């Protein structure tokens, strides 16, 4: 199949996929090389089929820590100029450069990959009440209106690197080991059909949220319609996109804390709510479930979601997908398989499996070295 | 007596205030500067409460009311006494459209004129018999679908007593009109008769009350003969179907 | 299995079809098959049901199997007896001489005079050999149902 066709399919229909996921966080925000996460995700090579892999690292751009950083891929000539024109109208481009890559033989259909460090020109134009909403709108506009361009990373002091290939190939391609970050998440993809579009790989990100996901969300249809109502347009047709947007909507816009957010996304069963003895909590659980009925993620999933101040690992409410966590010193590891953790941390202090629907939430200690860490809680 | 200044107050708050006072045992409440507040007295169940309103209350005054007396010093808008169950509304002025819509019990006295579709679908039940006395004139569709109770139109202030289509679909109750039968199109379902002695007896107490409220002469009212509009059947649409 | 004690009548749900009688007769006859039995007039039994009807109200009433049954006291032969196992008031045709004392004292009026054997009283035996009386089982509207000793409704499920 031609690339354009493959991309079209990828961009217009939802392709269910199986996956492997991994995440590492240093609670004190001490940065460490991406080598660790590469090693971890590669341990689970068999969970993917070479059709997608990716990484997200936090704290990787300390020199631009207060700039919005957009990673954009272009696969159509002339599109780059158009997008840059659009960006210049809205931002002061502080810095821009091609994302440094290495040649890897087995990779194909490689798009042009470029990154921009931006300051918002006119912060509150278009009646948007926050910088974040402005960035969100910008990303939405580029992804919806520029056919040959795709913003795949849009946070501050963080970046997503992804493509079509095995995780080791993608790591090599982007030189992941050269980056140092305090939180890393990674993805190894197993889509159910052939894809050639790099934008379809994971992690998926919006603002400084990045998300990797294993499983399929059967409620996708209604989650998507719900998000569209809130101004999130799902252009990628992936469950991961929906999950990421839901986190942004609930945690950033609606200011729910992560616990409440978990009540929404992996709602406790009515029977469980009924059994809850803390009256206040019970009421809240019930209320959240009623109000956010359309936001519930139904179906099997294991997700790792990160932003600059937190890393969350979470299962669906029946724990239909695997997820293991471990900790040692100021490190916390999360992965689809324990081996992926043992590989990089042979002797963790604690290894555990999270309960269905109950998230592992790792908050970062504030660290003066890496700028302000936003707390969404 | 307690007073409330309703100036600029939203109806919900006003009703809450009135209810709170009534619950605390207040028997008479005066509300001044009423202007457009809807639903005053909605569903009230306070049997011996009297509310004096000054100004222009909003639509649905006394909707679903079940026993309270409301006196209005001014005109009222549309839907006064909508689906009223019991109680009394006295208006020292004119009333708007659909006054006494579907009322099942209680009394409405209007000093002046009423608008269109007055007393539409009034009905009666057991000892509940709604009565509406109108001092002036009424618009079209008076007593449409009327199923019970009585409407008395006095026409004391001149003008066309009633509009066209009075008693359309009427299948119960009585409309009493004072003076000669107006030259209008009546509903097909009614007939007009002169009053008998017992009819006068029936309406007398209400006329007395009317005269009392609005300080007018009972003799003057009686100077002119009444006629009554009654339905010919209480099954007006029985024959239009093919079973 | 809880043994039924008596048939309770919900007259407000009797639809007046009288199927109870038909099934009662069928059950108590030797034929057991409705059509043949009726067609060939092999009706060897009578219904133990008294069917009453007036205006829109109707009901079928059978022996109440009273706790303190007057018919038991009045029976001069011992033909009327209480079954020890089930508590039902049963009637032994062989012993009955047709003195009509039971007919006389039954306040419900449900002891009937057998038409086939004029000297014998007849009444409902709650279909002693079946789990549920035939009338109850075939009532289309549960206008009759059985209760146990404590007055609890017994149903199939």
């Amino acid at each position, binding site marked *: 199949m031609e690339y354009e066709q493959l991309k079209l399919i990828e961009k217009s229909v939802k392709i269910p996929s199986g996956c492997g996921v991994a995440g590492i966080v240093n609670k004190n925000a001490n940065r460490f090389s991406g080598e660790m996460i590469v090693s971890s995700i590669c341990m689970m090579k068999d969970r993917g089929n070479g059709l997608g892999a990716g990484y997200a690292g936090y704290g990787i751009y300390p020199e631009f820590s207060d700039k919005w950083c957009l990673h954009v891929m272009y696969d159509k000539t002339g599109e780059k100029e158009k997008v840059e024109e659009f960006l210049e109208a809205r931002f002061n481009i502080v810095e821009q450069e091609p994302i440094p890559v290495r040649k890897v033989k087995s990779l194909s259909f490689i798009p042009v990959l470029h990154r921009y460090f931006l300051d918002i020109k006119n912060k509150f134009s278009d009646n948007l009440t926050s910088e974040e909403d402005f960035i969100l709108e910008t990303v939405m506009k580029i992804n919806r209106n520029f056919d040959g361009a795709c913003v795949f990373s849009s946070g501050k002091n963080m970046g997503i690197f992804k493509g079509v290939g095995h995780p080791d190939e993608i790591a090599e391609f982007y030189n992941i080991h050269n980056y140092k970050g305090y939180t890393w998440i990674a993805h190894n993809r197993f889509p159910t059909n052939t894809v050639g579009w790099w934008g379809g790989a994971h992690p998926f990100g919006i603002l400084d949220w990045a998300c990797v996901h294993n499983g399929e969300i059967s409620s996708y249809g209604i989650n998507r319609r719900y998000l569209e109502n809130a101004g999130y347009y799902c252009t990628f047709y992936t469950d991961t996109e929906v999950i990421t947007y839901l986190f942004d909507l609930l945690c950033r816009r609606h200011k729910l804390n992560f616990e409440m957010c978990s009540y929404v996304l992996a709602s406790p069963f009515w029977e469980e709510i009924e059994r809850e003895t803390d009256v206040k909590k019970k009421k809240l659980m019930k209320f959240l479930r009623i109000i956010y009925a359309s936001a519930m993620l139904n179906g099997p999933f294991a997700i790792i979601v990160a932003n600059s101040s937190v890393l969350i690992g979470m299962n669906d409410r029946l724990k239909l997908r695997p997820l293991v966590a471990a900790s040692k010193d100021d490190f916390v590891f999360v992965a689809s398989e324990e081996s992926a953790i043992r590989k990089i941390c042979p002797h963790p202090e604690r290894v555990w499996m999270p309960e269905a629907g109950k998230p592992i939430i790792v908050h970062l200690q504030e660290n003066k070295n890496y700028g302000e860490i936003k707390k969404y809680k | 007596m307690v007073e409330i200044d309703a100036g600029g107050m939203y109806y919900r708050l006003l009703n809450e205030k009135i209810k709170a006072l009534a619950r605390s045992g207040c028997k008479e409440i005066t509300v001044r500067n009423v202007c457009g507040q809807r639903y005053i007295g909605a569903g009230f169940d306070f049997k011996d409460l009297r509310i004096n309103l000054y100004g222009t209350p909003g639509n649905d005054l006394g909707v679903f009311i079940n026993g309270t007396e409301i006196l209005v010093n001014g005109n009222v808008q549309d839907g006064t006494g909508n689906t009223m169950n019991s109680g009394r509304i006295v208006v020292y002025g004119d009333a708007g459209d659909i006054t006494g819509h579907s009322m099942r019990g209680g009394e409405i006295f209007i000093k002046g004129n009423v608008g269109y579709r007055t007393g539409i679908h009034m009905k009666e039940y057991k000892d509940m018999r709604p009565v509406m006395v109108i001092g002036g004139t009424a618009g079209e569709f008076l007593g449409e679908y009327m199923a019970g109770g009585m409407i008395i139109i006095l026409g004391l202030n001149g003008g066309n007593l009633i509009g066209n289509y009075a008693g359309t679909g009427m299948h119960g109750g009585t409309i009493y009109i004072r003076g000669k039968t107006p030259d209008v199109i009546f509903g097909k379902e009614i007939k007009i008769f002169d009053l008998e002695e017992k009819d006068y007896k029936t309406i007398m107490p209400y006329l007395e009350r009317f005269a009392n409220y609005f300080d007018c002469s009972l003799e003057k009212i009686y100077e002119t003969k009444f006629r009554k509009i009654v339905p010919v059947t209480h099954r007006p649409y029985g024959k239009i179907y093919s079973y | 299995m809880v043994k039924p004690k008596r048939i309770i009548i919900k007259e407000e749900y009797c639809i007046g079809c009288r199927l109870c009688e038909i099934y009662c007769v069928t059950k108590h006859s030797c034929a057991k098959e409705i059509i043949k039995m009726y067609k060939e007039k092999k009706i060897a039994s009578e219904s133990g049901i008294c069917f*009453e009807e007036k205006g829109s109200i109707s009901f079928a009433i059978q022996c109440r199997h009273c*706790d303190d049954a*007057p018919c038991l006291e009045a029976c001069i032969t011992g033909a009327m007896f209480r079954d020890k196992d089930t508590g039902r008031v049963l009637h032994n045709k062989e012993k009955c001489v047709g003195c009509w*004392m039971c*007919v006389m004292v039954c306040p*419900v*009026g449900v002891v009937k005079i057998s038409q086939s054997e004029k000297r014998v009283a007849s009444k409902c035996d709650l279909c002693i050999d079946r789990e549920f009386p035939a009338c109850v089982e075939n009532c289309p509207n549960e206008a009759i149902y059985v209760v146990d000793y404590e007055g609890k409704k017994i149903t199939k499920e």
Partner: protein
Amino acid sequence: METKYLIIGNSIAGVSCIEGIRSIDNVGKIVVVSKEDIQNYSRPLISYYLAGKISENSMAFRSAEFYKENSIELILNVTALSIDTKNNTLITNTGNIRFEKLLIASGGSPIVPNIQGYSKDIQGIFTFTSFSEAKKLKKYVEEEKIDNAVILGGGLIGLKCAEGLLEHNIKIHMVELSDRLLSSTLDKDASNFIETVLMEKGCVVYKNDTIENIYSENNKISKVKLKSGKEIETKLLVIAVGVKPETSFVKDTGIQCNRGILVDQFMKTNISNIFAAGDVAEGKNLITEKSSLIAIWPVAARQGKIAGINMAGGSAVYEGMFPMNAVEIAGVPVISFGITAVDNLENYEILKKSDGKTYKKIVLHNNKIVGSIFLGKIERSGIYAGLIKNQINVAEFKSFLLEEDFGLLILPEKYRKHIVVGDGIEV
């Protein structure tokens, strides 16, 4: 001999008493004494026996197991002579029995009026109240090939006897002192009805008459002469003018008697451990609300049971009953309740209906049924008995009382529901 419970009489009152006692006390010793020689028989069945409709074996209304299961010591052929109420002892012809609780259920004995020429020793004269008499009568009828008989008394016993004799194709002359047959239970209309039926069967009925003289030859009856002068040749005379309570042994014991032994609502006599029930006892008549003798089987059964329960320490109250009778004469069933014939029409209301084959009559007093007669068609008559017993006001449905399809449906809803679903279904 000593016992906890002692019962005099082994008919339905005595047997019911046993059942009453055993419903409460399973172990207390019960002794029953009977002056008869048979373990158990039903007295009303003697006419059926006479008629040959049932055998001697079928006379029992309770089986031999009944006595065994209830551990009853039944002593036959014992005649009570007196009671020593101070020492709780029954004195009999065979010895004394000490008791804790005593039931007198000695029943009644036939009345034999003084008639000229009568002697106990004359053959061919019988009473008709016990099985032994009936057996003798049957044997006599069969051996002597009797073809006509005179029955003195047109009451229930007489008619029952007639019914039995009719089965032997015997022409019956029935002599009745009053103006009609069954005068105590039927009105004139019903009586005439019965009379007609009997006459169709070849009976001759003499009303307002009685036997004045009995003639005998060779110590065998040969003829009777009626007061009216009529002479009837016969080899069989049955004296059936009635029974009286068998209270002879109660005399001078301190137990209060009127015509029968007086009892309270617990069937207790004035002596606290002595009870009486059945034909010998006077209980409350529900209709007249007076103490009276109602010598019928269901009353005896109920009284015996109540006495038994109370003797065993339970508590049961006799609420009273009223006279009722069921009889079938020549294939015509008749049932009557309470007051059936009244003269004082001011206080009573009579409802009647007849179609030549059936007859139905209801007597009302203050809108309550106090009596009724059903003739020919008797089904569902028990409902009326219930109405009498429960003193239901029938004003509302009076007009339906005579209806062909009279039934529970006519009754006031509350009462009907009580019967149909109520827990106290016995009414």
